[in-house]
């Protein structure tokens, strides 16, 4: 179990993480979904003991990370966003070293190293120095180094970024397996598809704040079966706001001079009405996009912007 309560972390004037609270349960994958710079890595850093929280409480497997640091890290596995490997050493040597950092030794260490090499598909090239590996292989090794000691809680910070499709499938399988074996998994990503497919429970984070949290069905329900319609062109936001407010069952999520974002049920059937209203006011429409209910549309609805901006 990973419990985060009122976590706050500031870099100078910038509040990177602002009053974040959530609980990740054992045997499940908890996703932290948000765009770049949302504060995901900072949150992970505070849980892993790398960063000192400005305020709030973090407990890992019942141990407070501030007052019981080493104890809280004993059974914690961390897979950092950036590769953290010795390039001159082989995969086996890397794993053996990090395993020893968690107190593994002797035949047990050997067994664990072999087992994660097997799992991550690196056993055939385990003796080669890491610098000869492809990017995907390094990612898998980076992951393997985080689980060599069979952690009961696992922090994964965007482990699939920049990974080839084959390695990605393998990595995601590895993540599922960890939670199936009972580990508490905290998984951060900015890919919604990944979050949708992988996570049992999700928190959406933006600008350091959690803006929605729940299971996937719960989050979908927040959207109320509404589609998201984005219209790009040249507008006067005030007039558009007035005009469209008169239409029934349309929620204006955001409007500026270049884009208007609307949430409405069955947007496809209402598209022509909406466009007519806009062009009648004399505005030019260049492009429209329609998104059906998904995490992406929820994110747009909550923040007025796309996840991948």
């Amino acid at each position, binding site marked *: 179990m990973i419990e985060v309560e009122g976590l706050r972390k500031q870099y100078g004037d910038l509040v990177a993480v602002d009053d974040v609270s959530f609980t990740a349960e054992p045997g499940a994958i908890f996703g932290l979904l948000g765009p770049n710079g949302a504060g995901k890595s900072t949150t992970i850093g505070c849980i892993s003991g790398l960063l000192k929280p400005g305020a709030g409480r973090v407990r890992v497997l019942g141990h407070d990370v501030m007052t019981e640091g080493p104890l809280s890290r004993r059974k914690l596995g961390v897979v950092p966003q950036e590769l953290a490997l010795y390039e001159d*050493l082989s995969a086996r040597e890397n794993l053996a070293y990090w395993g020893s*950092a968690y107190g593994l030794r002797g035949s047990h260490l050997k067994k664990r190293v072999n087992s994660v090499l097997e799992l991550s598909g690196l056993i055939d090239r385990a003796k080669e120095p890491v610098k000869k590996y492809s990017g995907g292989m390094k990612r898998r090794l980076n992951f393997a180094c985080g689980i060599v000691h069979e952690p009961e809680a696992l922090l994964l910070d965007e482990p699939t970024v920049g990974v080839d499709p084959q390695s990605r499938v393998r990595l995601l399988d590895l993540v599922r397996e960890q939670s199936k074996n009972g580990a508490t998994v905290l998984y951060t990503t900015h890919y919604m598809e990944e979050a949708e497919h992988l996570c049992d429970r999700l928190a959406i984070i933006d600008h350091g704040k959690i803006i929605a949290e729940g299971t996937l069905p719960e989050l979908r329900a927040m959207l109320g079966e509404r589609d998201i319609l984005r219209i790009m062109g040249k507008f006067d936001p005030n007039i558009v706001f007035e005009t469209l407010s008169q239409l029934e069952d349309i929620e204006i999520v955001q409007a500026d001079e270049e884009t208007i974002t609307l949430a409405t049920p069955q947007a496809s059937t209402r598209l022509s009405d909406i466009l007519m209203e806009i062009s009648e006011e004399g505005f030019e429409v260049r492009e429209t996009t329609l998104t059906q209910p998904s995490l992406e549309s929820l994110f747009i609805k909550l923040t007025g912007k796309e996840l991948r901006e």
Partner: protein
Amino acid sequence: MRFVWTTALKDWRRHRRNPIEAAIWIGIPLLVGFLIALAFGGQGGHTPQAHVLVADEDNSFLSQLLVGALSQEAAGGFIRAEEVEQDVGRLRMDKGDATAMLVIPEGFSQAVLLEEPVALQLLTNPSQRILPGMVEESLSILADGTFYLHRLMGEDLRTIAQGPPPGATVFGDAAVAALSVRVNQLTQRLGEYLSPPLIQLETSIDEDQEEDDEITFGFLLLPTILFMALLFIAQGLSEDIWQERTRKTLRRVVVSPQHILAFLVGKIMSGAGIVFAVCLVALCVGYAYLSLSVTTLPLALVWATLSGAMLMTGMLTIQLFATSQRAGNILTMAIMFPLMMVGGSFFPFEAMPKWMAAIGTKTPNGWALQHFKGIVLQQTDPGSLGLAFLGLLGVSTVLFLVCAWRLRRGFAQG
């Protein structure tokens, strides 16, 4: 405790896989030591001179360049080169007429230009104990490095070889700084040439001769070269903490249940191990070379190793307070070279003006070097030696604590 050990092992492995790095740490001091020997050899008056016969079978531009380099360096007084025909040279060697004979084989320049391996033959005279060895070493360095060195920084070499400008007793700051930069650039470029060695030196001993002892001035160079190597190693190893940081492995240590101090101890232990290995080889070779009494070797070894560890911890401290890897590098270099120059680790104290040597012996490396010499020559009494050991350990401990403090306060999180 176990983690200390695995950390040290891990670092040994990593360094073992970068032999070029080590070749530079040790190669440069040997090279510079040789040049210094040439530069100051002439002024000592007591310097033994090596008479080298050169048979140039290749007779090409390149071979002449090599002969030229040899005779030019010889202006310092250590080597006197004389060109001869091979068969004449062999006859004269049999008579014991010269220290050594160098044979440059036919096809030498072709091989060098085509980057094929080629062997220079050096025939040495066993009746002279030390000189042939010095010639051999000089030549092997000349073959591996000076040859290229001449192309890369011929001008600086002449500057060193000529000694300080007339009227001055020391090299000026600007000259030293310029040289430091050049040596630094050189170490990087030299790396390209060091593996594989392009020119090999084959040595054989002309057998039918008898032994005879010679006095040595090489002794002055042993501590100088050793401490220069220690400074290079200390600086080189200290950079590794930045590798750990930029590769993010330091972060992994922080998020593990291990204490960062265990990691630091392991790292310093691995460095001390490397220093020990280098000192062991250097001292065994040096003692044999100079026919020193072996009884002082163990103590000298311990002292040199501890000195190296102290220098390394000092460099590490500087790295940890630098704002970037680049800054750390420049800073440690900027401190290392003056320490080297003044602290008897570039020019022997004996070759310095008295006032300068007096300052030099107060530098950490100069101080350690003086005690090292005292140990080797059995000139230090046990009491002051004990104090010196305590001082060395004390300074190292303080430096270690500063490193530990800085590592925990922010450096590792970067």
